[in-house]
């Protein structure tokens, strides 16, 4: 009799262990699959690459960026979205755009800002310097820079800051 009692006791403990293991697996699986894929890092890099290609592609400066005399054209700033094939319009009348792009052209020697333009939602900009623990809830920033040589042999340092918000779509 005592042997049988012992077997039953083992069975109860066995199922208790199974329940504990199952609960652990369910929690682990939920923590892995429960989160959405966060693609904002890649997205901000693609955005920066697209802007870089728009400004300087194959060793040639965009003909609409500079005048033949090598002066930056103001209308490039005004038509930046159209010329670089960007569309930040989102659904919803009062929904702010989840993107921000800033381009700065520095002179090669003294690193003075010669020309700059920005589009999108600049409220995301402070997120780039923020060092909080739950950084997932902040916008993702990407900084790129490259040198650009114009037809008149002037060299500029081009810095591109691209930011993607979209916190709701990429985090829970």
């Amino acid at each position, binding site marked *: 009799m005592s042997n049988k009692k012992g*077997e039953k006791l083992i*069975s109860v403990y*066995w*199922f208790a262990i*199974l329940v504990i293991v*199952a609960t652990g*697996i*369910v929690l682990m*699986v*939920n923590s892995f*699959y429960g989160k*959405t*894929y966060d*693609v904002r890092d*890649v*997205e901000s890099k*693609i*955005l920066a*690459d*697209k802007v870089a290609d728009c400004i300087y592609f194959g060793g040639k400066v965009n003909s609409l960026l500079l005048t033949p005399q090598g002066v930056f054209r103001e209308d490039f700033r005004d038509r930046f*979205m*159209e010329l670089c*094939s*960007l*569309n*930040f*319009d*989102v*659904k919803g009348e009062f929904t702010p755009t*989840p*993107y921000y792009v800033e381009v700065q052209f520095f002179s090669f020697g003294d690193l003075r800002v010669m020309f700059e333009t920005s589009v999108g939602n600049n409220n995301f900009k402070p997120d780039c310097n923020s060092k909080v623990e739950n950084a997932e809830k902040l916008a993702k920033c990407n900084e790129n820079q490259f040198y650009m040589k114009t037809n008149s042999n002037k060299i500029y340092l081009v810095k591109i800051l691209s930011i993607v918000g*979209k916190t709701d*779509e990429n985090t829970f």
Partner: protein
Amino acid sequence: MEKRGEILVENIIFIVLNIAFLSILVIFLLNQGSGESILEDSYSKQVALLIDSAKPGMIMRVNFENAKEVSDENGISFSEILLINDQYVTTKLNEDSGRSYHFFNDINVSSYYPEKNNDGDFTGFYVLTFSRKNVE
């Protein structure tokens, strides 16, 4: 003899319960890995990123085989699972679900259609073709 029989029945019940328990766990894991919402989320984002990096004149062939399996199970036609409209990519694998993701590239997705083989069956791939938007 009677006692031995009792032990056998108890053991069988114990083993059956164990197998049932583990089966439920495995089914749960498999369902989680191929869940509709996860696939909808990942496909809409992947296609949006592909469009973001696309250039006019490109033709892309995107693998939707996993999505096809789920949409077939749910009775949704494969030709209706992808919608690209107003800068949004929407993937829908169930009548009541669907995920959308915005893309920033102002490019014209001139056509997107499910690829068919010689027999007229869907291959599980979508073909996307891109062209320049008409700028005034």
